[in-house]
């Protein structure tokens, strides 16, 4: 080991000149040795479980298998066929798509709007507002859920009391299958937008001031500046934020879990919630694993589509 480190500087100079075979030389060996612990960890704790999950998804691993491992049967793609034949699955998929393609864009828009406000020249106490908007992100969801359940309470809740001022009749936010999904979305957006807000603020601070000044000299109005200067400059940040947010909303679990448990009438049941219920409520671990892989495929496709859209825009620009 010490010999390897000793010759490293010489090897580095050497490597700078010509391309070398990746696994030759003492430097590479040292590099491998240094990388090995983390690679091993990834292999054991990431690829191991993923492969195990893939195998599970091809079996009927269930409560009987937990008691007697010999009762596991290999059923090929049976779990996947079962999922595609179930109305519960399609319902959960539809709701998950709503979370991802309605919830995530709203969340990103709210984050961006709030970031513009926080970053505006005329805003005072910027750190204060940043902290306020970030506070929901670091608050425990369970505590937040209790407060929001009070807000949404149909008879005494603040939300209904506020709406009543405008003559809007009472809504049973979490009990009505039509309103529970929007109610959960509002909570999720409120809870999570602060994180993206910080990323947007950082992005906004990196937009060169000269560009704005130049636009102002050219007589651009505020929204023109936003559209032609701020937004294009934010594009990379925007892509990052939208991809991660969409993925997060695909995996939405805690909010519906603590607020409605997927109800009423499964109207807020996301795929992850369905997976959880199938896996840990009914012990169909094989089926739940199959659901996980379906969700993985869906997320993969959605993310690839986002990247592709972004690339096309860049090429057009």
């Amino acid at each position, binding site marked *: 080991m010490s010999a390897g480190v000793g010759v490293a500087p010489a090897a580095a100079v050497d490597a700078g000149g010509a391309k070398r075979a990746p696994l030759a030389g003492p430097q590479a060996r040292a590099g491998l040795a240094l990388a090995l612990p983390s690679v091993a960890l990834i292999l054991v704790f990431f690829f191991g479980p993923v492969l195990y999950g893939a195998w599970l998804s091809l079996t*009927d691993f*269930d*409560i*009987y298998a*937990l*008691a007697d491992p010999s*009762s596991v*049967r290999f059923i090929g793609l049976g779990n996947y066929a079962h999922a595609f034949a179930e109305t519960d699955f399609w319902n959960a998929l539809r709701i998950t798509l709503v979370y991802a393609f309605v919830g995530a864009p709203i969340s990103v828009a709210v984050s961006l709007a709030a970031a513009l406000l926080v970053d505006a020249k005329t805003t005072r106490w910027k750190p204060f507002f940043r902290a306020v908007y970030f506070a929901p992100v670091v608050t425990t969801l369970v505590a937040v859920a209790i407060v929001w359940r009070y807000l949404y309470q*149909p008879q005494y809740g603040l939300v209904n009391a506020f709406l009543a001022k405008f003559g809007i009749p009472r809504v*049973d936010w979490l*009990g*009505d*299958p039509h309103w529970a999904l929007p109610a959960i979305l509002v909570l999720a957006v409120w809870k999570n937008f602060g994180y993206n807000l910080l990323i947007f603020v950082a992005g906004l601070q990196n937009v060169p001031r000269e560009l704005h000044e130049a636009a102002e000299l050219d007589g651009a109005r505020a929204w023109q500046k936003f559209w032609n200067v701020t937004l294009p400059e934010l594009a990379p940040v925007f892509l990052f934020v939208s991809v991660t947010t969409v993925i997060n909303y695909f995996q939405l679990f805690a909010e519906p879990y603590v607020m409605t448990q997927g109800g*009423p*009438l499964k109207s807020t049941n996301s795929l992850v919630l369905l997976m959880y219920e199938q896996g*840990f*409520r*009914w*012990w169909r671990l094989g089926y739940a694993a199959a659901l996980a892989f379906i969700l993985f495929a869906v997320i993969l496709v959605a993310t690839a589509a986002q990247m592709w859209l972004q690339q096309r825009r860049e090429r057009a620009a």
Partner: protein
Amino acid sequence: MRDFEREHPGIRVQVQQIPWTAAHEKLLTAHVGGSLPDVGQLGNSWISEFGTLKALVPLDPWLAHGALGRDAYFGGIWDTNVLDGVTYGVPWYVDTRLLFYRKDMLARAGYSSMPTDWRGWKACLRAIKEHGGPGRYGIFLPTNEWMTPVVLGLQAGSPLLADGGTRGAFQEPEFRRAFEFYLGIFRDKLAPAIGFNEIANKYQELSRGTFAMMVTGPWELGEFTRRLPDSLQTQWSTAVMPGPNGPGASFAGGSSLVMFHGTRHPAEAWELVKFLSRPEQQVRFWRLTGDLPARREAWADTVLTADERTRAFGDQLTHTVPCPMVPEWEEIATRVYEQADRAIRGATSADSALATLDRLVDKMLEKRRWLASRRAAGAKKS
């Protein structure tokens, strides 16, 4: 607990409280992690699941030389603790469903007491409906609850599942008869075709006279006292479920004391189970929580039998039938009301709803059939 520790100076009991909604997950993860307590309270619909997982200690050897036994308890309730002939729990408190009704509305319709059979029940509902006029019903049976159709099926003698819990028996004549009766209540508009979510406040609707009865459980004794207006407090009562011919059965629910697998203090744990099962402790628990005692002797307590509303529960408990003891039961039960709901709303006929139900349930129980056939093949070989 302090009394128990005083009696057994060598034993110290640590009590951990967990809310019902989290109990199932907490106990299962504890089972996987090997950190289950010595003794626990388990909803008896979970016994089959935990029994299948081998998380419970069979209690038969302990019961063999002790004062506790099936005779001391309500039979139907005791049977919810027996899985494939092995006893895994001792009933602690009990739960069942029966009718809560408004005496004044029955009286106005010409009834001085609750009828005890299906025919009389339906006639009574019809009389109340006619007396009440439009927008009024006889009874509230939430369409998204499995309890009532299942209880009616049990009353009609349906085993619900056939062949050792490996197939649905919903198309058999017994369940079909109960199902027709249940659907008939909605067809004749004696009950509104709505679920829990579509009614804002059932206590309010009952006070208002939208309906005169509902089928519900013992916790409602307290809720009715708290939530109904003072003027109605003397006007409500409870009655045993009407059956096909005379007083009918209801389902056997409640909670049991179990010993978890891996306990290091089985003898002490058993002492605690015995202590908590004493009649005087059961009555004490009832006073504290309102949960009805499982032991028959405890019902000799005058406070329990003095009140006609509690007494009806005592009567009902002598007629209880357990639901099928398979781990899939809770999920099967949700399928029952889903199909019943479709038939009530006219989306399908009764026949095809039951056929669908059997098909779904058969699919769910496929593993059990396979396990049974494998067991049979193994038995033949040896």
